[in-house]
């Protein structure tokens, strides 16, 4: 059986988030974006998005996406037991969106999230920020801003638990 062990604890994760906020500001400046709106992917992405949303001082309410019904493997995996409503309480049309997730691996979650975003309106730009960019991409989707790049064998996993404290757990063959 595979075992989980702590890969990173709250304080270190918060340092990564601070780095992400700095890179994001720079990135947005380069793209001429002054008023980004932040959207997090349920659940881990939302925890990181909440902190980035505070640091970017975005006046719009934080958006939350639950992509359960947009997954390309919905009929294999089914409904996530913790499914909750997606909430975007601002007009997304022509806005600059910062989309946040905790771990990017295959890229499928981000694809699903972008599909869902477009059902709320047509954003002007989407900037992707991920706490962990791990190996295993299956789609041509790359984050713009990353907290940490982590090459991992396919049979190892990294998972964020939280929200207080945040912990990164690594699961593998022990």
């Amino acid at each position, binding site marked *: 059986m595979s075992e989980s062990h702590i890969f990173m604890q709250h304080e270190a994760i918060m340092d990564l988030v601070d780095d992400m906020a700095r890179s994001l500001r720079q990135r947005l400046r380069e793209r001429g974006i002054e008023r980004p709106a932040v959207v997090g992917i349920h659940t881990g992405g939302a925890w990181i998005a909440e902190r980035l949303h505070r640091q970017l001082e975005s006046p719009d309410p934080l958006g939350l996406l639950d992509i359960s019904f*947009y997954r390309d493997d919905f009929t294999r995996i089914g409904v996530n037991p913790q499914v909750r409503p997606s909430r975007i309480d601002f007009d997304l049309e022509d806005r600059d969106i910062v989309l946040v997730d905790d771990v990017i691996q295959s890229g499928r979650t981000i694809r699903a999230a972008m599909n869902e975003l477009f059902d709320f309106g047509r954003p002007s730009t989407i900037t992707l920020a991920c706490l962990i960019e791990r190996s295993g991409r299956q789609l041509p989707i790359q984050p713009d801003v990353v907290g940490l790049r982590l090459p991992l064998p396919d049979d190892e996993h990294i998972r964020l638990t939280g929200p207080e404290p945040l912990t990164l757990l690594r699961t593998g063959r022990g």
Partner: protein
Amino acid sequence: MASKTPHDIQLGPDGQLRHFLTIEGLSRDLLTRILDIAESFAALPGRPVKKVPALRGRIITNLFFENSTRTRTTFELAAKRLSADVLNFNVSTSATSKGETLLDTLRNIEAMHSEMFVVRHSQSGAAHFIARHAAPGVSVINAGDGRHAHPTQAMLDMFTIRKHKGDFTPLRVAIVGDVLHSRVARSQILALNTLGVTEVRVVGPRTLIPTEARALGVHVHHDLESGLRDVDVIIMLRLQKERMAGALLPSEEEYFRLYGLTNERLAVAKPDAIVMHPGPMNRGVEMDSEVADGPRSVILQQVSYGIAVRMAVMSMCMQTHAGGGETA
């Protein structure tokens, strides 16, 4: 050997919903999960695109042996909001009237690769029968069978109650009217008791309350005022005129005089009590227009929530159980 009862066949080996035939035998956790998932779908009407791609490319068939435009339409809309394709078979216009058996009809529609049947039938047990004979990988949802069950209606009522009252535990609920002929009432009573309300009352004339009512765990009242006293939720049932063989009632006027809901009678319930009706409503028979259109009435919300609840049940049944790893 006795055939399996509906609640034995409606769950898959892993306890997931495969068919949705009756509330009977379903756990509180599972009912709560249906309501939680419906919560996600209830937010869709506020969006520019009111659908999700979950069941894109799948085929869902409405198989209606009994007319019901409203129920069929909400099932159709639910399927379409999940991006499924929908076939509508109304039996009066289909091959069964030419002598084809029910199972032949079923096999034919299965051959069109339909993966779900939404079944409405005047015979109790019809949906169960179809579920027992359905091919593996085909789910059946009961959209009302005879006097037996109408589980999605009951769940949309539960959803409406939770939206207004939050917790089920402290609630007293009165179900008023023709309980005898009502598949809705049976499903509601099972759902309310499973979700753990304080009290379920059924209120109506002796001729319209089944003799076994008390065995369902309800308090029986024949007087409307005592039945409504201090309740949080009032569910009015439709007088099933088309099911009423023989003279169980003197007249509609007499029924309204004794059991019709008016603002005056509503006053004995809790001040924040909500009034529900599964529709279609007979104004001036089950309730006064001033109640139906009044501030306590949540009847139209029931219709909107019905779509979300049916989406939840459909998406839960349509997931196969192959498992597989989740990748980010």
